[in-house]
């Protein structure tokens, strides 16, 4: 059963801005789908269209079997939404907010209160429930937002960058909660700019750049597409350019990151020793050396030409793997 089906979805703002440029995707029921991309890639615009907050300029989309334009009310009954930056009223208490959310979804008063209390307990906010949201930490706000999105037991949950700006502990707590929800059968569509988040949580990942999906698949299959491991070399001092020349003999150079020289090894791990020897013969002192298996960042670089996290350095065209059509 398909929970989300999108065909040729587009959204224009005025005549010049094409924020979403013909997105096609399918999310199966019970799946966690991560929409991965940098700021401005079109993730939030897509989510806003799927959650009926924004009308598409073109294409079609159904969520939980309902068309987002023709049957928007039915879509809204079937989904839970936790939007970017946790849009919570700082003057309300946690308990007030979750009760309001229950009312918005038409739950009878007693039922809304019961579910609200259970959810506050579940996300660890029962003791802070009568405090104003303005006094909550970022992590507490996100957990409250998540809890309020679940009060009507939605079939499909949309999370727009649920952990942006959170510390690692809070991020992990959200991940655990999302996994638990998914185990209980909720389909989760999440947008993120964190590779680790997509890698950890998602059954499938869609990489979006400039309004288009440039790659789609399971994290494993996407990484396997990239194939070979790469070597990350840090020099004790200077001569970065010479080191790049030398390592380029052993494979395809990749954009440098945090002062390290990166090369995708043609011969895999067997090439490590020759690289070290070559650098040594050139008189370059190596400070550290890491053989790194492909990550989603590598996939991202291969498909878009730049890193999602870290520096914004462009990749040499020859280092790019030709972007394939999404599955």
């Amino acid at each position, binding site marked *: 059963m398909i929970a989300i089906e999108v065909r040729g979805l587009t959204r224009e*703002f005025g005549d010049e801005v094409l924020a979403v440029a013909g997105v096609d995707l399918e999310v199966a029921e019970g799946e966690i789908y991560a929409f991965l991309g940098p700021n401005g890639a079109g993730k939030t*615009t897509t989510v*806003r269209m799927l*959650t*009926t*907050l*924004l*009308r598409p300029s073109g294409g079609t989309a159904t969520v939980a079997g309902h068309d987002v334009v023709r049957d928007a*009310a*039915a879509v*809204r*009954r079937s*989904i839970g*939404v936790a*939007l*970017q*930056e946790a*849009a*919570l*009223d700082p*003057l*309300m208490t946690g308990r*007030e907010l979750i009760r*309001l*959310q229950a*009312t*918005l*979804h*038409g739950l009878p008063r007693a039922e809304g209160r019961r579910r609200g209390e259970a959810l506050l307990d579940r996300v660890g906010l029962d003791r802070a429930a009568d405090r*104003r949201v303005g006094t909550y930490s970022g992590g507490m706000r996100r957990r409250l937002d998540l809890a*309020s999105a679940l009060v009507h037991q939605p079939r499909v949950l949309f999370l727009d960058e649920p952990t942006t700006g959170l510390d690692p502990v809070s991020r992990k707590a959200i991940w655990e909660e999302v996994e638990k929800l998914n185990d209980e059968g909720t389909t989760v569509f999440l947008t993120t700019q964190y590779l680790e988040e997509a890698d950890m949580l998602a059954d499938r990942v869609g990489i979006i750049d400039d309004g288009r999906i440039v790659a789609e698949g399971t994290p494993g299959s996407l990484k396997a597409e990239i194939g070979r491991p790469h070597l990350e070399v840090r020099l004790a001092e200077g001569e970065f350019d010479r080191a790049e020349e030398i390592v380029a003999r052993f494979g395809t150079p990749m954009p440098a990151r945090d002062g390290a020289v990166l090369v995708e090894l043609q011969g895999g791990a067997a090439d490590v020793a020759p690289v070290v020897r070559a650098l040594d013969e050139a008189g370059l002192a190596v400070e550290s050396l890491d053989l790194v298996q492909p990550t989603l960042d590598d996939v991202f670089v291969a498909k878009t030409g730049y890193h999602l996290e870290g520096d914004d350095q462009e990749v040499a065209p020859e280092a790019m793997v030709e972007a394939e059509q999404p599955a």
Partner: protein
Amino acid sequence: MIQRLLLNLRVVGSLGARSVKQTFRRPQLMAPIIVFPTLLLAIQTSGAGSAIGLEGFPQVNGFLDFMLAGAMVQSTLLAGNSGGIALAVDIEMGFTDRLLAAPISRFAMVLGRLAGTAVLGAATACWFLAIGLIFGVQIEEGVPGALLMILFVSLSAIAFGAIGAAVALRTGTASVVQGLFPLVFVILFLSSAFFPADLILEPAGSVAEYNPLSFVVDGIRDPTISVLTAEVFWKAVGAIVLILGIGIGFSALALRHRLRTGG
């Protein structure tokens, strides 16, 4: 159908309650509604009380009798403006998205805000009535007159709130709605709120005479100082309906535009 209507009414009630709590919890929203009009009322009644001796001034027991309606309308105008600011803040912080993503009538978001403004209007009417009664005002029309005053103030609060909501929905910016503040005073002083329209110098006198706000003020004032005639009553109702119609109409258009363009 009926079930849906009941759900939306419940939502409007909940959002109205939130709106009232929000006002009490945010002093900058409360101050213009209660503190400023009360201070202005105190200053004007103590400083300009001799105006009642002017030829053509309505027959009143004291200047406070005359001024009370003006203070109430000032308060409701500012309550409407504060409601607009609060709605714009909701838009700015994304809270309205929470409401728009719920399976309710999208206009419930506006109606909820207006319900809260109406409650605040009723509360301020009671506040000013209490002040008046403490300082010797006699309501000529008695308890029915006082109830009618509260009703008119509540309805005019909804009408002014609808104008504030329209501006908030169209601009989505709290500072723009806040920028209407001085305009509120211009409209107020160009009406019979603080002085009889026929004693105001021209051309302001003519503006005050036809200012719909003057009809609202007169409808609230007459039960205090004399007998409310049918003409004054219907003029007040007509003015409120006109302002409400404009406010609701523009709010609906602004909301439609916002939903279509996404901001």
